[in-house]
Each structure stands twice: as C-alpha cells, then as structure tokens.
C-alpha cells in the first residue's frame, strides 16, 4: 500500500539573497511517520511553513492525496486536512482544555447552539484511543508542557487532520513524556494518519520514523528508510562531514573542592518547595552533571547560584565558592568572583536580540577593565574579542558582524554565548543551563569540546541538562535531582563505566529521576 499523502516537487523559496529552500522534492506516503532532519538553518522550518500555507513558495508545486493544490493560508491547509503543532504552543492560558480545542472551529457557527457535551465526548474518545489522557475541564495554565502538547494534537484531531506536522515536538519534553508522545504518534499512524516530524535529534528519528529526509543548506540531500541507515550516516549527511557523536572525554582528575552547597532550601510565595536541603560539592577540574526531569528544581538552583532567585523566595542553607558565601550577592558581584553563567533560556536571559553580535559578546563582561577606555569602550579590545570568538568558535555570520544577534541560527547564537562565558578571565566556576538546547549537531560537538577544555584547565563546572546523553557524555559525577534534592549520586568510577554502555546507564539514571 503506497498512497501518496503529500508530494512536493521543485519547491524553491528565497528570502532576499538567501535561498531557504532550493528545489526540494519530497514524497510522503500515507500512514507513515516521515522525519525531516537537518541542522538549524537548513530550511526545515521554511519547508514546514510552506506545507502549512504560512509561506508561499517562489517555485514548485504541492499536491495532497495526489490532488495538486495551492495553500495560501493555514486556514486552507486545515481545510485540506493538514494540521501543525508549533514549537511554541498557541493556546489561551485562561481557557479550559475543551474551550481551547473548540476555539476557532469551523463547524461552530457564531450563533449556532454550543454542543459542549457532544464535543466533550468526541474529544474524550479520541484521547482515549491514542493514549493521551486529559481532563477536558482543566485550565491550560495548570497543565504541564507535555499535556499542553497533547491539547495541541487533540485540537488537530478534532478538526480531523489527516496529515500532522510536528515542529521539534520533543524539545520541551522530559524523557518519560517523549515516550508517551511517541506511543500516541504510533497509534495515530496505525490508524492511517500521516505524520511529518521536524527534528534534529537523530536518536528520535531512528526510534520512531519510518522514513527520513535530510536537509542541508536548503537542499534535500537524501530520503532514506529508517531501518536501512545508521545514526552516523544521518549525521554525516546532515553536517556534510564526519561527526564525532561522542565527544572524546579524557580522564578526570578532580582537585580541591571549589563550590560547596549545604542544605539549600528554597520556598516560593505559594508555599511551593522548589529546593529541599540540596547538598553537593564540585571540585576543580570536574563537571558535575545534574540529571532530572524539567521542573524538579534545576532552574531554581541555577537562578539561586547566579544571584537571581524569585523575589518572593525564602531561602536557607549555604552556597560557598572557595569559602565565600554566594547567597545574597548580585549577579555582577558573583561574576566578579570568576563565575560564568550560560542561562537556560537563551532568548530571554542570555542575549539581547536586537543588539549586534559584537555587543552581545560583551554583555555581562562589559565591566571588565580590559574593555574600558574612559567612560566608553576600548575599540581594539572589542575587536579582539570579536575576532577571538569568531575564529575559536567557528562562527558563521555570513559576513557582517554588525547584524543583529537575532538573525543568526540557534547554533551560532549559542556559540557566541558560550564563547563569551567560557572566555571570562580567571574563570573559576561555570554554570551551564541546557548549554546545547536547540543547537545543531556541529555546534554541539564544538561546544562540548570547549566545555571539556575548560574542565581540563581546572574550572569547576555545574551542568544542568534534560538531555541524558549530554550529561553522560560530559560529566565526571552525576547527581539525580528529584523534587528539589539530589536523590542519588553516581561516582566518577560509575560514570566512567556508564559511558561505555550509555543506553543501559540512561536507564539506571532514569530510575532515580522519576
């Protein structure tokens, strides 16, 4: 059975002089899960926006169920049976699940009677069938990220979408939620629906997809069947060269304790206990990895150590950097002690989108004496910094360094942040929050190597990541965080051993974080 659900031929889309999609042809068979993989900036998002009618191609044709069509808006795409789950959800927080699903439904006339109970039954039925349990009357603002995503999918199913486009659906999910999502997607496929999965995580591609198309620099390089390929082959196709997936991790030789956290507790205004007597020690020249499902206190720990706890937080315990208490200090004082921070949320906390690349390289380091000249900046020192980060981090800015930070791909953005923070003079402690989230493979490889270099140079590093693979690859020791405290700690020997058999090690870490 090979009915074509979607066929693209010769799709080309240019933005100014930049070609986002170059002669892309693709056939997606009905009842399959088809992954589109590629690095950031490879043109995946443009392609999915074209399929969803958000962007019109300059050339090429699109046909659905073998019928050629032109989609000029998402409204038409929905009519044609295409639904999309965006990376950032489009839900109204102050409405219930049911209301969000019904919102904007074509079948609902403005003045026709509102059959709430009927809709509730239909939705409950769909949810049940595909293993996506949800309370239809829960308010969106009280849902977890995974549940919100379920609402988005149910919204599409309620509108009877036959082709589902998911843009990086697992970027925001914990491992357990990812498993549930995949179960639901398989069930949808078995029902005859078609799913297009946009992603850059190759493990997921191999895990769930039937076929995979690889994009690079706007071109569709290859379409392969997932049982006839390997992660290495996909990575090579994506990046265009051989990639070392596992960063080479030299032996760890931790030194004296540098950061000591003792019985850290934090309670926020609504009596929520965010951290509960958390204790850990990080030594010089070691990477302490914190593994855990998002929302178990990792963000709060990073905020606290960077001097930015929520205003209404009640904090007890101590956090000492070489005997100096960090709690109560401001970020600029903490930075002054030789601490660097790569915040979890790049866009909101780490950079200023409208500022130039150069200005972002200075952000937070602009007080350093080396950059000062009178009340202004020393231009030579700034240019040196720009040059250093650009070359050492292989920045691809397409020429102008005056362009806005926002216009760069995620990988290049994160390289700038990493370059800035790792380059702090006399660096003693490095706080890393999701250092490679939303970053392509090539950039991950580079950033991982730079982190390991810093460790070799004797920096103490705290690594918070929801990617177990990243934690296992980099860490000297691993602490499993659960409900605000370290529930279990893996010793350097155990981690070293675990690195040999990552899949099995992931499982045993998983036991301690759920």
């Amino acid at each position, binding site marked *: 059975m090979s009915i074509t659900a979607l066929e693209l031929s010769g799709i080309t889309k240019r933005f100014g002089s930049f070609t986002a999609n170059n002669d892309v042809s693709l056939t997606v068979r009905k009842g399959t899960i088809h992954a589109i993989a590629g690095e950031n900036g490879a043109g995946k998002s443009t392609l999915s926006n074209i399929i969803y009618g958000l962007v019109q191609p300059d050339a090429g044709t699109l046909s659905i169920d073998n019928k050629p069509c032109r989609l000029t808006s998402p409204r038409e795409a929905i009519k044609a049976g295409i639904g999309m789950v965006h990376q950032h959800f489009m839900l109204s927080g102050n409405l219930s699940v049911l209301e969000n699903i019904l919102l904007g439904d074509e079948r609902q006339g403005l003045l026709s009677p509102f059959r709430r109970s009927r809709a509730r039954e239909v939705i409950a039925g769909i949810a049940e069938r595909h293993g996506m349990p949800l309370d239809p009357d829960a308010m969106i603002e009280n849902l977890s990220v995974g549940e919100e995503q379920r609402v988005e999918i149910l919204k599409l199913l309620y509108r009877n979408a036959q082709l589902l486009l998911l843009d990086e659906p697992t970027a925001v999910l914990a491992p357990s939620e990812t498993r549930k999502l995949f179960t639901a997607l398989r069930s949808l496929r078995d029902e005859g629906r078609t799913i297009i999965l946009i992603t850059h995580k190759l493990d997921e591609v191999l895990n769930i997809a039937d076929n995979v198309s690889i994009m690079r620099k706007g071109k569709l390089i290859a379409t392969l069947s997932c049982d006839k390929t390997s992660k290495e082959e996909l990575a090579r196709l994506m990046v265009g060269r051989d990639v070392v997936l596992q960063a080479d991790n030299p032996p760890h030789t931790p030194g004296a304790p540098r950061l000591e956290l003792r019985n850290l507790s934090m309670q926020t205004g609504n009596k929520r206990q965010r951290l509960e007597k958390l204790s850990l020690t990080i030594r010089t020249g070691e990477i302490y990895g914190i593994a855990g499902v998002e929302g178990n206190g990792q963000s709060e720990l990073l905020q606290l150590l960077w001097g930015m706890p929520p205003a209404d937080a009640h904090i007890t315990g101590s956090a000492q950097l070489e005997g100096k208490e960090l709690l109560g200090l401001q970020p*600029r004082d903490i930075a002054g002690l030789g601490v660097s921070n790569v915040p979890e949320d790049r866009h909101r906390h780490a950079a200023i989108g409208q500022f130039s690349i150069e200005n972002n390289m200075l952000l937070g380091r602009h007080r350093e004496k080396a950059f000062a000249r009178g009340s202004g900046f020393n231009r030579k020192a700034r240019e040196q910094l720009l040059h250093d980060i650009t070359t050492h981090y292989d920045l691809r800015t397409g020429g102008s360094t005056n362009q806005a930070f926002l216009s760069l791909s995620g990988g290049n953005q994160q390289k700038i942040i990493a370059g800035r923070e790792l380059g702090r003079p006399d660096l003693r402690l490095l706080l890393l929050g999701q250092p490679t989230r939303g970053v392509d493979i090539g950039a991950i490889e580079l950033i991982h190597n730079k982190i390991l270099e810093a460790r070799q140079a004797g920096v103490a590093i705290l690594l918070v990541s929801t990617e177990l693979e990243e934690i296992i690859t980099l860490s000297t020791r691993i602490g499993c965080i659960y409900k605000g405290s370290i529930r279990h700690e893996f010793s350097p020997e155990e981690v070293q051993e675990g690195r040999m058999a990552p899949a099995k090690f992931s499982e045993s870490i998983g036991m301690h974080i759920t």
Partner: protein
Amino acid sequence: MHKPLPRIVTPAAAITVGLLLSTLLIIAAGRDPLAMYAKIASMTFGSSYGTGQVIFRTTTLVLAGLAVAIPFRAKLFNIGGEGQVLAGAFTAAVTAAFLPSWTPAPAAVTIAVLAGALAGSAMALSAGLLKVRYGVNEVISTIMLNFIIQGFSSYMLTNHLALPSTAHTPDIVDTAIIPALWKHSPANYSVLIAAGAAIAGYILLFRTRFGYEMRASGLNPQAAAHAGIDTGLHTLTAMAAGGAAAGLVAANIVLGYRHCFESGLTAGIGFTGIAVALLSKAHPLWVLPSALLFGAMEYGGLSINAYVPKEIFMMMQAVIIIMVLVMQKK
C-alpha cells in the same frame, strides 16, 4: 533576512505622504498649493524674522524631543514632557525673578537654567521612582503628574505670584536674560544649549558603557539583569535625563524670549515633542532635523493662516507620525 532600509527612507516617505495630503487640503480650501508653499518658504527662511521664529521653535522642540527620545531607549514612554516643560519654565521664571539684581550674568543664567532643568528632572524622576518602587506604569504617572503641575502652577500664579491685574509673573532680572541671536529675533543663544543637549544625549547613549547598559535594559530587561546590570538605576537615570531636557526648554522660552511666566506659555510643547521623538526614531542626533521640520511646519502654518487654516498643518504633523509608525511595523 530582509536588508534593513536606510534609516532616512521611512521619515522621507512619511513626510512625502504628509505633503501630498496637505496639498489636497489646500486645494480643498480653494488655494493654489504651490503658491502657498512658496509663501511659506518666503515667510520662514526667506526673512530674518521668519528664520528666527523657526530657530526659536526648533530649539524648543529639540529639547522636548530629547525628553521623549532618551527615556524611549530605556523602553520608557515619557508622556509627561508637557508637565516637565511647564515645571521647568515656572521654576526658572520664579527663580530668575527673585534673584537679586546684582547677580552677575553668567551666574544668573546658570542658576536659572539649572533650576529649570532640575525641576523638569524631578518631575520625571518621580515617575521613575513610582515605576521602580511600586511598578506604576510611567505613561499613567506622567499624565497624572502633568495635571498636578498644571494645577499647582496655575494656583500659584493666580493667587500668589502674578503681578496685580495681570496674568504673568514679574519679569526676570536683566542679568538672567539669554541674549537674542540678532535684533528683533525670538531665536536666542539657548539654541546652543539644545544642540549641546542632543550631542550629549548621543554620547551618553551610544558612546559610553553607561549608555550601553541603558539600551540593554530597554531592549531586554531580563537579559540585562542576568548580565548584572541594575535596570532600576537605568529607569531612573533615563527619566531624570529626559526630564532635565524638558526643563531646559525654560532657557529658550523664559530666559531667551518671554522673560516671565504666564499661563499657557508652554502649552502643547510636550506633545509635539513626542512627535519629534517618534520621527527621529528616538535617536538624539536625528532629533535635530526632526525638530527643525516640525518647527518649520509650525511657524509655516501660522504664517499663512490668513489664507488657509493652520489646522491643516496640525493634521499634516499627525499624518507624518502615523505614517512613521505604520512603516516601522512594515
């Protein structure tokens, strides 16, 4: 991926649209637009009195424009230029009127100018404090402060300060007068203060580390805070600097022109300042040509009031601003 347009394009297109509209209105009013524009040209830059009027108005608008532009860079919308100009003018006039007549000229001018700047600054700073301390939106607080200073100055004028059977304060001491640029011209040497303020604003914002922090706070306060920048401090200084610029208008209007305070002396200046700042895209140096344009339109409209209603030019100003905003959104 779009190349940004050169920054002159938006204002130029906006002005063109404004001109077209006013041309239509002049035709509708039954006049020949070309003749009217020729008349405006000869009445403004064609005569020394007209030139003086335009420079005088431009001086005021540069300062009123800076009052909005500088806070705008810290993401603060200072609607209170009106009240800050009034506070500055009132304070400078009263201070200069009560100075002993033997005060030497440099001292008298300096004291009066500083008094005006401080009064404007204090007005704006209180809105900044309300924002930093209590989270009160500066748009609301500056509008309220406008009412407060209007009420206060008008009460003080009518009940305590006005000369008997007049509606103005006593004249300022002679030594506090800022001399005219040439005889019978309203334009005076405070035009240098305005130009200096624009340059100082530019240097502060774009050439110092302080300004780097201020712009960072305005563009992304959370990221700025993570970078160890005290965003509250920048809210306060941006408001204080903007208010001081508004207060400096007193130098031009009171010390350089009217030599006393009367009710309605500064009416509308703060609001035109908003328009000037928007057209300049909140860039202190672009405030200069922007203010010149509005100054010329204001006096140009007035000069042909006998033939076509000056309200046409008011409409033109508003059309230009709306066009700028429309085109910035793309």
